[in-house]
């Protein structure tokens, strides 16, 4: 069923209807979530009561607290941002090193190590979280029991969350950066070396600029994936809850339009980040 094969009009109509239905299915949940962020009613449901910005701006005086005055949500947003920053830094740095390792060097056991590198992708996120919790937190408990030394950084909290997320985001960063490095023409680097550059100078002036778009792409992806992650994060989080966990706890108490407001805010931020990355990639 390609363009050059004749088709009946009925088939075309059905196909088109299916496409439309599909994209409605994709967009509907997000559209309604966004719309109810502005409904002037304490519940995110019909009927429509009119437009309001209360769910962003209200300061709690009339019993409504908007997102920008909700200290616990803003705190959670800040925790998530800090986590995402460290995860991005760690996984992109590791991703660069891994990409060079697997694309440019030849060594024994490379095939096996490459499979190990892919491993985090086929382990469910819950299990990644659980295993890191069991090992690090368990070790901290043992050390405390045997020698009375408190290894607080290995207790559930921000460090463990960052470690858990870096585990699988590094694999994705490696794949993104590695795919770009594969297309690099090594002769360019050789030319730089022939012209008298040291390997380090050649790397920073020739190879790295070539990789830059993929590094930005990987960074944007890492940031978003870290920000949105729930399954690994929830096992490892301590008292400073990140946003997804805070939203989940709120949602179990009951839904309010503030949740819609946060959701729309998050969509806007990710959309912006995605757009910037696309533009960046198109520019080069």
């Amino acid at each position, binding site marked *: *069923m*390609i363009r*050059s*094969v004749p088709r009946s009009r009925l088939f075309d109509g059905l*196909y088109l209807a*299916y*496409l439309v239905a*599909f*994209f409605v*299915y*994709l*967009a*509907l*949940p*997000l559209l*309604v*979530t966004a719309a109810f962020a502005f409904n002037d009613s304490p*519940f995110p*449901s*019909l*009927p429509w009561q009119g437009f309001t910005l209360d769910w962003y701006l209200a300061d709690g005086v009339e019993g409504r607290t908007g997102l920008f005055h909700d200290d616990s949500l803003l705190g959670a947003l800040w925790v998530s941002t800090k986590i995402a920053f460290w995860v991005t830094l760690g996984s992109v740095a*590791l991703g660069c*090193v891994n990409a060079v*390792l697997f694309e440019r*060097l030849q060594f024994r056991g490379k*095939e096996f*190590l490459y*499979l*190990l*590198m*892919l491993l985090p992708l*086929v*382990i*469910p996120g*819950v*299990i990644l979280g*659980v*295993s*890191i*919790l*069991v*090992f690090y937190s*368990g070790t901290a408990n043992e050390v405390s029991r045997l020698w009375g030394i408190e290894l607080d950084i290995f207790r559930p909290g921000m460090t463990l969350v960052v470690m*858990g997320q*870096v*585990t699988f985001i590094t694999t994705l960063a490696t*794949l993104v950066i590695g795919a770009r490095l594969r297309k690099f023409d090594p002769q360019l680097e050789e030319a730089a070396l022939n012209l008298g550059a040291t390997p380090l100078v050649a790397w920073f002036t020739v190879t790295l600029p070539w990789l830059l778009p993929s590094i930005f792409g990987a960074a944007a992806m890492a940031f978003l994936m870290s*920000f*949105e992650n*729930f*399954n690994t994060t929830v*096992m490892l989080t301590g008292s400073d809850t990140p946003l997804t966990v805070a*939203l*989940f706890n709120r*949602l179990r108490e009951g839904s309010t339009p503030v*949740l819609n407001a946060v*959701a729309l805010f998050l*969509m806007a931020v*990710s959309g912006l980040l*995605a757009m910037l990355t696309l533009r960046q990639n198109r520019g080069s």
Partner: protein
Amino acid sequence: MKSSASRLSLWLLLTPFLLWIVLLVLVPHIQMLRVSFQVRESWDTLAWGLEQYQNFFTESYYWRTFVRTGVMSLFTTFLTLLVAFPIAWYIAKMARGRSKGVLFLACLIPFWASELVRTYGWMILLRESGLFSSWLQALGWADGPVEMLYNDVAVIIGLVYNGLLFMVVPLVTTLDGMDENLVEAGYDLGGGHATVLREVVVPWAMPGIVSGCIVVFMLTLGSYLTPVLMGGKDSAWFTEQIFTQFITRFNWEQGAALGVLLLVLSSVMVWLGLKLSGQSLRKVMG
């Protein structure tokens, strides 16, 4: 001199990789396996034993949920493939120029939102006070509020929604590379739609199908938010039990055993998928 310099650079690059894979993946998983075989005799003494695994097989609630989760994940994966294939085909083979890129980007839109936000959107649509219920009443098709949330159908709708992107992208990528002459030749040689699909298109798209299915299956099996928030009392998910053991009961040994079982299930399914389709992990993922 040259060889010692290249050795040095190899080790410089290998060390971060090894630290990452050993400290964050291998050692924690080995420890999880070890803990799952430990039985707590008193507050500070442990013995080796199979108690946790025995619990799994004797308490029907555990293994029933396990089987249920596996079967529902398989079904969801299959359904996602069915839903995504015509879309991927349209984007790869029927759309032209600009509309191709636009449609492809449109498929990515749901992933501007996290799983939590997507699930929340479905809850607003499907619940008793939700939009579908209001619309049905407004149209006069229902007399009172209709509850469409908290059942298995709702869970599957949500899970398919979560998986779609990971199915569409690999399918579009492989179908894009297919020569349309192959399809035409299939028709010229007298094949019908079904024959061409079975003999030409599906074999060509196999790497994409396998990689999409593996990712969707893994995501579905390991998902937590969608089944917990959209499922009813009877639609327990296996990840939920792992969370319960760790977070509410503090029974790490049992939780670790359940975790190992889930990991075994997902590894076996991935391995089977690769074997049956004759693909390798490297080709499918890397």
